[in-house]
């Protein structure tokens, strides 16, 4: 079990406004989950909880058998570095570092040795040509940046990859390339994938499609 959520309850400062109330939810190893829901359904909050940035108000989240609430902030940072890859909608890279060094930085946080070779290998398999490897990230196109972000998220061979609306800034051609490259890599690395989007047209490629509104029982969804 990569992710296991039990009786998760979360609200921000105001207890009258619960954001998430998930009795039970889990993701198996190498499973590909498409999670959709309208804006304000608590998608971002759930991702921050799974990544260990937020802690649940009550309930339990287990990542790879480790209960997040029992870990210190530093331990959660380590867990995220080693076992979870994250890709956002955009701005995934440190703008002043080149592609290879962006990936190496992620490897450094995870303590992965000799990441340079794997970084180049990933970049090549994601269609980033050699001459772009040492361009500062800010000079790459959006589509290229998103592909470098997948390479960065996968450099430490994480068990879980969380992807949040990664294609919404891309055009149709780039979007399709991105999805097929992503699924290809996930397949190859046997990584569990949680793909968050409101674009249901992408759902066909996934083994499991979940509606967050159905999972989430909270009343005061924002």
């Amino acid at each position, binding site marked *: 079990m990569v992710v296991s959520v039990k009786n998760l309850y979360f609200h921000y400062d105001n207890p009258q406004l619960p954001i998430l109330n998930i009795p039970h939810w889990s993701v198996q190893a190498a499973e590909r989950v498409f999670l959709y829901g309208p804006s304000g359904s608590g998608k971002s909050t759930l991702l921050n909880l799974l990544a260990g*940035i*937020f802690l649940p108000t009550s309930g339990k989240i287990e990542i790879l058998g480790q209960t997040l609430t029992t870990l210190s902030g530093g331990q959660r940072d380590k867990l995220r570095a080693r076992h979870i890859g994250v890709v956002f909608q955009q701005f995934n890279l*440190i703008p*002043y570092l080149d592609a290879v*060094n962006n990936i190496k930085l992620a490897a450094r946080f995870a303590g992965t040795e000799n990441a340079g070779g794997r970084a180049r290998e990933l970049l090549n398999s994601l269609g980033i040509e050699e001459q772009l490897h040492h361009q*500062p990230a800010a000079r790459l196109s959006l589509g290229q940046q998103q592909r470098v972000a997948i390479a*960065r998220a996968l450099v430490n061979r994480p068990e879980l990859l969380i992807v949040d609306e990664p294609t919404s800034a891309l055009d149709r051609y780039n979007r399709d390339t991105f999805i097929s490259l992503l699924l290809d890599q996930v397949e190859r690395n046997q990584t569990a994938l949680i793909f968050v989007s409101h674009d249901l047209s992408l759902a066909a490629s996934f083994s499991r499609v979940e509606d967050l509104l159905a999972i989430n029982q909270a009343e005061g969804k924002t």
Partner: protein
Amino acid sequence: MFLRLALSSLLSRKGSVLLTFLAITVSVFVLLAVEQIRHQAKDSFGNTVSGLDLIVGARTGDINLLLYSVFRLGNATNNISWQSYQHFAANPNVAWSIPIVLGDSHKGYRVMGTTHDYFTHFRFGQDKSLLLAAGSPFSDIFDVVLGNEVARALGYQVGDKLVLAHGLGSTSFSQHDDKPFRVAGILKSTGTPVDKTLHVSLKGIEAIHVGWQNGVKLSRSRDAAKGAYQQDLTPESITAVMIGLKSRLSTFQLQREINTYPDEPLLAILPGVTLTQLWQMMSVMEHTLRLICALILLASLLGLAAMLLASIRERQREIAVMRSIGGSPWFLLALVETEAVLIAVGAALTATILLALTIALSGDFLADRFSLFLDSSLLTSQSVFYLATIIGCTLAIGLIPGFTAYRRALHQQLT
């Protein structure tokens, strides 16, 4: 990796980083330069006189006596009689004594009448004696030995003739033009007021005043100079006496004896003690200078903090990325601190190199114009202490943007 990250981060914000860097460079430069000049000034000040135990003059203030006898600054209030000088020179504790007479000048440089003992016994710096760069000490009544700067500035060579002026102004109307002097020797540079002095014999001073009364020339005879040789040129009074003792132990005893001499009101001072008093008077200025430097530095470091603080606002995305790949808030604090220290260290090094270059290039100018001899001991323990303090202050002030980054990171959501 970490340093490269910090460096790349700074390079990506070249404009504001460069300005902050320059501000700190300038302030560190000012701090080190003031420190260097202060240090050297104090040294050359303390090096002016050494190896003499007492200075005796007419009764006046301690510092005034020191200033006019050693630094040739200001004027003697009164003279001391030749008899009193003879009396104390004959004291069994006195090893040697140098009488000096001041009051005349040559083109703004002071003329000092003295004896051969001056060249034998006078010491400056670390017990260094006066050395001749050319010629020999005076032997004739109308011989003069020039300080190095006098010879250099006025272009005199051994054998040149010059005319002394009565009084101390640089453009005196009463010249001793009836009795010209011949340059007998030129001293090597000392970095002390000796460089700015013309040395003549006591008899020479007496001789040029033959035929003068109360500072006014009475007769103007062509043979004035020749006539001088026939006269008794023992001075009636002198300005001050420098005394070396056989044993330091008798210093206070003799000082007391001179200060309570019933026949004439006299003052004896210990030059070392009075130098210290004089330097303490200047220490207010010294501290003020240091305070100003410290405040300039503080201002520039606050500028650094402000620059980094502003940058953190625009780095919110970067912080989110760092967090998403497992960077801890402490990592971000350390990154910001490293950036601050990189700028400060770079600026401090640049300032040090600039100062070294400045000293190397302007050393001659400073020595010429201000008699300030800067040696190359740039990194004194004091300067190293200052540099360490600068780094310490940078770390402390860097905590302001550092903790802002930390707090941002802690609350930064992904996405």
